[in-house]
């Protein structure tokens, strides 16, 4: 009886993995099956595709700089301090991970739009954010920031507290400790978080479309360009899709290699995507 149960169980495992592969891998593979290399190259020659790629990479790069510059110290603070309302702050920071893109887009408009919470202030300063290149970056920061902060916070929290104790007993201030030891030791986790955030920023679509629109060469990112073109030119959409898949796959591989080099399974995806860890 036990024997037969075992066989069914193992069969179940294999069926589950096959179904998973069908659901997750087939759509990605299909992009490459349906678009040949010749079409891929031809479509990359289109100005719309080139513009979109530039907008995507440039915006995601600026987004990453912003996220790392502010997210690293913020994550360190959350990882090393206990203060009233800390759990609420962490939840608020993580919330964008689970928000639907439409909610994110509406939220950004409500905050920074002409009639939004900060709209008046920004207008008096002569700043109009919606439908600008800056809006693309803001949308990307909103969706990718939480992924980085989660990873960075986990990386700082994993540092042996005795190292910080040793430093403080030796009379050295926290700023030097942060820069010379904490950040270098957390670097693998920070790198993983940065890669995930960059990938998420590249893939950002819904909130950008609502908040920044789709102006070619200004706010039209690669995902938006694909959406614009697929009704009229499915082949070109496929080719641009293939490009995005290739870039994202290269990023994921980087994460895996970063993780492997430090002898651990990469914290992605369970640590990044589960809400509590």
């Amino acid at each position, binding site marked *: 009886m036990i024997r037969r149960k075992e066989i069914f169980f193992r069969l179940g495992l294999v069926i589950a993995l096959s179904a998973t592969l069908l659901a997750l891998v087939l759509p990605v593979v299909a992009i490459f099956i349906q678009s040949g290399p010749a079409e891929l190259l031809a479509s990359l020659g289109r100005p719309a595709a080139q513009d979109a790629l530039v907008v995507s990479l440039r915006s995601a790069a600026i987004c990453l700089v912003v996220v790392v510059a502010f997210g690293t110290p913020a994550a360190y603070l959350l990882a090393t301090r206990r203060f009233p309302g800390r759990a609420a702050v962490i939840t608020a920071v993580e919330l964008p991970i689970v928000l639907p893109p439409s909610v994110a887009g509406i939220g950004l408009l409500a905050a920074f739009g002409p009639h939004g919470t900060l709209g008046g202030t920004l207008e008096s300063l002569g700043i109009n954010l919606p439908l600008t290149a800056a809006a693309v970056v803001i949308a990307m920061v909103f969706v990718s920031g939480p992924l980085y902060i989660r990873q960075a916070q986990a990386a700082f929290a994993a540092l*042996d507290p*005795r*190292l910080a*104790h*040793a*430093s*403080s*007993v*030796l*009379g*050295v201030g926290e700023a030097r400790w942060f820069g*010379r*030891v904490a950040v*270098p*030791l957390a670097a693998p986790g920070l790198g993983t978080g940065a890669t995930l955030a960059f990938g998420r920023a590249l893939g950002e679509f819904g909130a950008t479309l609502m908040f920044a629109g789709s102006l070619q060469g200004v706010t039209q990112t690669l995902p938006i360009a694909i959406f614009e073109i697929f009704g009229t030119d499915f082949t070109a959409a496929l080719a641009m899709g293939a490009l995005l898949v290739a870039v994202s796959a290269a990023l994921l591989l980087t994460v895996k290699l970063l993780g492997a080099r430090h002898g651990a399974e990469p914290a992605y995806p369970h640590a990044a995507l589960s809400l509590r860890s």
Partner: protein
Amino acid sequence: MGLSLRIRTPLSHFDLDVAEEFGDGVTALVGPSGAGKTSILETIAGLRRPASGRLVGNGRLWLDTASGVACAPRERRVGYVFQDLALFPNLSAGQNVAWGIGGSRTQRREEAAELLRQFGLDGDMDRPVTVLSGGERRRVALARTLATMPTTLLLDEPLTGLDARSRGDAVAALRIAISRVDGPTVLVTHNFADAADLAEEVLVLEEGRIAQRGTAASIGAAPASRFVASLVGANALEGRATPRGGGLTEVYLTGGSRVLSTDDAVGPVVATVFPLDIALAPAPAPGSALNAIGATVRSLSAIGPHTRVRLSIPEELIAEITTVSAERLGLAPGQTVRAIWKATATRLVSR
């Protein structure tokens, strides 16, 4: 100048409640893991704040919860060698040692090099600490601690997990460090032998309280409780004492056996006897020893020339005899023997 310490604070399973003076020599805090030893060190270093307490270090008030005084760790000039050393793994040996040194880059480098040299690590300045051996890392940690010229030295389990050979080197390095600190040294260990090796005075800590204080020799000779007896490696047997005359006291053990001691005691006592003082003989017993108790061999473990024999009388009794005599007796589990020791080797402590 010493340390004067009074702390009371809840730990997870009991309250830490200690009020002691520490002189300028080496004082050891001995107790099992979880007794509160490290909590005391962390309080002295300023890394942990007790619920209530007062701490005067080298003549300065470091902590007084009543008046809200709490010096930061850096103001106390305490050198703390952590149990796991807590070296910064991304830095070289030299950078680790230089961490707490002030001044220009060259100055810091020179001082670090000099300290490493004093600990026999001349060529290791630029080696990452992760490639150093365990012994080398220990010495880097000591050099790093001395770099700030501390006036109090705290050592957390500095000899734990060492084999016999590295232990000698580690003790030598610790002696260098201790001699360089002009003030009290507090050593924390779960091993009484470590305390006996390094400390002038020993405080035995049991569940947050000091169970006994004295020199290692005096505690070893007369453990004040069953707990201290087991800590110093003695057998502890519970029973009731009655004076028998002729300078002898008779103790009837809970399991029914009778033990004689030259100590005076009446009523419930713990009788302690060291494993090395117990001899084994085939039943029945010869000899002049006053204690000769029937015992059953439970297990044997030979460690080189010595063999530890676990006996049941029926209380557990450990005897340590030479492997030669264990073989001559043909000891085997289940065998009945006589455990023999002198009445003068039996210490009695009232319960």
